[in-house]
């Protein structure tokens, strides 16, 4: 399918995605745990009609990264993203929830809640495999001795979907006259008994308005890619050139590729270069991915070239310094993308699937005994 509009998501971070962002003037440490910080970022994104905001990306282990990093503060992503559903009424809400140490029933239930409460705007950034640092903090994970994480992750994701499907779409009858709230014939046991998980079900929440909230992954290992091919709607990729992105995009098959985009904006190229030099002088950025420092015009042209050249379906925005680079993106880059006919001017639908142009999955349990 040829898409007219690119997909744009924003990864939230209190200070910004450059590791030295918190050392820029104007950043106050209290902002790192203040909901207002994230609401303000989300509002910029929603006013610019972005597809979604995301909490918990890049994926980091639970071990502290060292005293030099503001990213030592990791607000729990699902709670943070839930806190945005009332102030932000249209934009999609994506949250990381790792598969290694939360039960599938709980994951299914949490996203059913997030999706129902927000009117169908949630997405799940699934992390199929976690590292040894997490093992030290998560005894349940350690006890399971996960030797085949991707096989386990596949079963995990399937069970989460089975539970979402355990309520048919029209299970809520809400018939006051005859006192039928839920039609019990439209709520089904899943009876899952697999290699890794057991769950009888049904879920104790109605099917999410989106059917299944879209699933994102960012694991580009061989196992991660085959997991993504089967389970993901969106894949976040750290590709530094359009050529490699295009190769990956062709390999992915089903899921849409969103390229991680780190950027520093300036009124002139020289100003942007000065800013990135100052930041890099304080701390080296994480390796990998697309880094841009320049003007709004330069960034819009780069994004247009990637998008129309088939390197990606859209971008996961990682502004270097918040809110400065995000505000500049919304004010200056988005209008240029619109002028190119590559980005929406208004939300057209209600749910995140509507924004993303993704079909709503049918219920596999419909009509089951």
């Amino acid at each position, binding site marked *: 399918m040829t898409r007219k509009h690119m997909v744009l998501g924003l990864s939230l971070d209190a200070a910004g995605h450059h590791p030295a962002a918190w050392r820029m003037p104007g950043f106050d440490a209290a902002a790192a745990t203040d*909901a207002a910080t994230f609401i303000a970022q989300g509002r910029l994104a929603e006013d610019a009609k972005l597809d979604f905001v995301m909490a918990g990306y890049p994926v980091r282990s639970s071990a502290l990264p060292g005293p030099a990093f503001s990213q030592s503060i990791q607000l729990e992503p699902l709670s943070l993203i839930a806190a945005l559903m009332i102030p932000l009424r249209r934009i999609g809400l994506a949250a990381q929830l790792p598969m290694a140490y939360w039960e599938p029933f709980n994951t299914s239930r949490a996203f059913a809640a997030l999706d129902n409460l927000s009117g169908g705007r949630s997405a799940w950034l699934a992390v199929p495999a976690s590292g040894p640092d997490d093992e030290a903090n998560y005894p349940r994970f350690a006890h399971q001795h996960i030797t085949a994480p991707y096989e386990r992750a596949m079963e995990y994701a399937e069970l989460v979907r089975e539970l979402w499907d355990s309520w048919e779409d029209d299970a809520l009858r809400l018939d006051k006259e005859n006192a039928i709230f839920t039609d019990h014939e439209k709520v089904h046991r899943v009876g899952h008994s697999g290699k890794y998980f057991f769950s009888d079900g049904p879920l104790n929440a*109605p099917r999410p308005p989106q059917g299944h909230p879209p699933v994102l992954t960012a694991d580009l290992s061989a196992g991660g890619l085959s997991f993504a091919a089967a389970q993901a709607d969106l894949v976040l990729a750290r590709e530094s050139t359009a050529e490699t992105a295009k190769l990956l995009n062709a390999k992915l098959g089903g899921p849409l590729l969103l390229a991680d985009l780190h950027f520093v904006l300036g009124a002139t190229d020289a100003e942007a270069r000065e800013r990135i030099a100052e930041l890099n002088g304080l701390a080296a950025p994480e390796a990998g991915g697309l880094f841009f420092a320049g003007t709004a015009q330069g960034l819009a042209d780069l994004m247009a070239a990637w998008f129309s050249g088939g390197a990606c379906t859209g971008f996961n925005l990682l502004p270097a310094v918040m809110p400065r680079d995000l505000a500049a993106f919304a004010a200056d880059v988005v209008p240029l993308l619109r002028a190119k006919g590559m980005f929406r001017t208004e939300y057209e639908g209600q749910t995140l699937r509507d924004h993303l142009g993704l079909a709503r999955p049918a219920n596999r349990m419909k009509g089951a005994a």
Partner: protein
Amino acid sequence: MSDRMAHLGLWLLSHGHNIAAWRHPASNPAGLTGIDHYLDATRLAARGKLDMIFFEDTLAARERNGHIFGEVAMNSLDPMTIIAALSAATQDIGLAASYSSTYHDPYLLASTIATIDHLSKGRTAWNVVTTDASAGRNFSEKGHPDKDLRYATARETIDIIRALWNSWADDAVIADKARGLFYDPAKVQALNFAGKWNAVRGPLNLPRSPQGNPVFIQAGMSETGMDFAAYFAEVIFCSIPTKEQGIAFRSGMRERARGYGRDPDTIKTMPGFVPIVASTDREAREKEEFYAELVHPNIQMALLSERFNMDMSGYRMDAPFPFEDVLAAMEADTRPNVGGDKRKYLANILPDDTLGSYCKRMTRRTYSHVHCVGGPETIADFIGEWVGEGACDGFILLPWHFPLELEVFVNEVVPVLQKRGLFRNDYAGGTMRDHFGLPRPV
């Protein structure tokens, strides 16, 4: 007149605590899946200066005869997600969610609850539940851990979570931009906790939250549950039928807390309480009648089916109570503690009961929590008496309808309580600990 102030919480449950509240003409059951229903009720409760709202947690669909219990409103959606959603959109009022210690890992629990405490600026509480047996089949073919094991692991989980919450000193974040030190590494400590069931290295990946430790709530009333509560809980949600039992329970819990080296004033007993309020005592009695009528015969039958684990739908409402059949079903019932104490229900059957007359009487009040029916002065008398005589530190309100019955309470009862000096005129502080007068843990 009492010199003690009441604490008031609110259990926010679907359209209300009457089992048929969703059938009320003013109800919009389709709204129960959206956040605005909970937001509006929370803002209303905050207008009434209540200490907190509270959400239950279940990890299995409510069932009867092997099917979902479709005659009643669906279970609460994930309560942590709800209070997280409310955290930045409400002010002042405390936000309490129940969550299972049995089916969640301590690190993520600690992180989730501390996150909500940050986002709400210190208004979060966790009601620690070990979860009833119906959850077992959703998590493991081995079934649900037994009660002693659940409470023992829960106690260890509390220790780990407290240690994680305390792994950052209050002044650990220094944000020294010149030196490039976001936190002072000497003030963030790993725990290396190695317990009997869990090993957690830590530290938490979050600074200490505004309350230091979010408030702990507990609701178990068994011997094990009470001992567990005395160990750590600051608010006890209990079910107390009479003032005398309230006095005994409260003094007992204070004594147990002292046994753990705690200041007894840091443990607050809060019985559930159903206020049925109207402008006059007479109108309140009429209101009670109206709500009793809402409980449709299908709901009555389904409740019975749930309690006795048998399909009652084939019996005639005007036939004598089928005592023998029910007894046989009870004997065959292997569900551990589902549907409450079934023998207690049977004891309430009168000699000339038909199934219908029994149903109607039994479902008129579905809670064992204490009820009070009357005008605002009568309700205020009740609250003043219980709190004044030391039967409790306050109540968790279970209004029969949201928003209607909460509105009546806030608009008519709260002003009377305030006038009598029994309830705050305004919030004195910003955190839930401030509302309850609980010290911030060092």
